């Protein structure tokens, strides 16, 4: 890292730009591959829910979220209200606000105004995680090239899944239906294993989720609102019982 810093000072503007471009693309490749696989599942789910392939693809290119899109899809297919759609997207995607706030402290001085308005569109869990762990300020160019391939693959994967979803046998498509949940589990379990507060929040959220799902008196509660209720109660309980230390953790 020491060497990097010395080199950085001697880089000309065009060299720095080329480096940002090269490293942005390099760092984005693993994200892009993962996105292709997960969005393929989303494409399949879209056609299982009765959407045309271009409709499912449009959802992906205009949203670029995983959990939010799956939640939105289930609201569409159950003909939920627009309020439910808006509130669900707000709560499910609220974590992006935290990421945006966090990254706003790390971008360089030229990354502001219109650039934030444009590139903020690409704030996903993985793009944020890679940008935030970079050992120097994040430039517009780096962030743009970091986002490019993943978003392209997210869109392309959705399209392939939506088109092939109709062709593949049902037993294959339903087995892929678990892959997104597998990804969620892979995100949640490692920190829950390391930090007891996270584990407690997870268990509480799952308990409320089961109560809303199986409790006879809660059958009116739609799945979108159920996620909001679980998330707000469990996170508030976590914040009250286990406030994060001053640095705010890594989320």
């Amino acid at each position, binding site marked *: 890292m020491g060497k990097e810093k010395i080199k950085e000072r001697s880089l000309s503007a065009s060299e720095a730009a080329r480096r940002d471009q090269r490293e942005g693309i390099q760092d984005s490749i693993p994200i892009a591959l993962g996105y292709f696989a997960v969005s393929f599942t989303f494409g399949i789910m879209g056609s299982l829910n009765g959407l045309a392939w271009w409709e499912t693809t449009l959802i992906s290119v205009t949203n670029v979220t995983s959990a939010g899109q799956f939640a939105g899809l289930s609201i569409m297919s159950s003909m939920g209200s627009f309020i439910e759609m808006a509130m669900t997207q707000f709560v499910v995607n609220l974590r992006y606000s935290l990421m*945006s706030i966090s990254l706003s402290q790390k971008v360089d001085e030229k990354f502001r105004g219109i650039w*934030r308005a444009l590139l903020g569109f690409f704030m996903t869990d993985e793009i944020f995680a890679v940008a935030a762990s970079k050992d120097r300020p994040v430039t517009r160019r780096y962030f743009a090239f970091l986002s490019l391939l993943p978003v392209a693959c997210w869109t392309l994967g959705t399209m392939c899944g939506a088109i092939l979803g109709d062709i593949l046998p049902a037993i294959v498509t339903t*087995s892929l239906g678990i892959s997104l949940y597998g990804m969620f*589990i892979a995100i949640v379990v490692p920190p829950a294993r390391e930090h007891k507060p996270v584990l407690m929040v997870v268990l509480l959220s799952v308990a409320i*989720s089961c109560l809303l799902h199986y409790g006879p008196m809660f059958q009116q509660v739609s799945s979108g609102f159920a*996620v909001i209720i679980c998330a707000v109660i469990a*996170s508030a309980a976590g*914040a009250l019982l286990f406030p994060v230390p001053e640095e705010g953790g890594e*989320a």
Partner: protein
Amino acid sequence: MSVRLFFLYLLVMSLVTYLVRAVPFLLFRGKIKSRFFRSFLYYIPYSVLSAMTFPAILSATGSLLSAWIGFITALILAFMDKGLIKVAAYSSAVVLAVDLLIRLF
């Protein structure tokens, strides 16, 4: 669902998602002061993802048995810190195997 209704849903969905991302990015320069709010936001991803996963995962596959086995497979692999892709791929493969076996017998 009509195409018009689809586009209305799409508009609501993408607009809210965009604003949630871009507005704080545009507005925030300083650090959030409320410790409660920061803690609340810190726990949001975990509470959201776990509520979305369970019990919905149990009806995500062809049978309850394959869903449980896929779920437990994912838990074990995630506990062992295998990455997102491996956890997702192996749990899908296990589900497919179980559902194929169920169909055979």
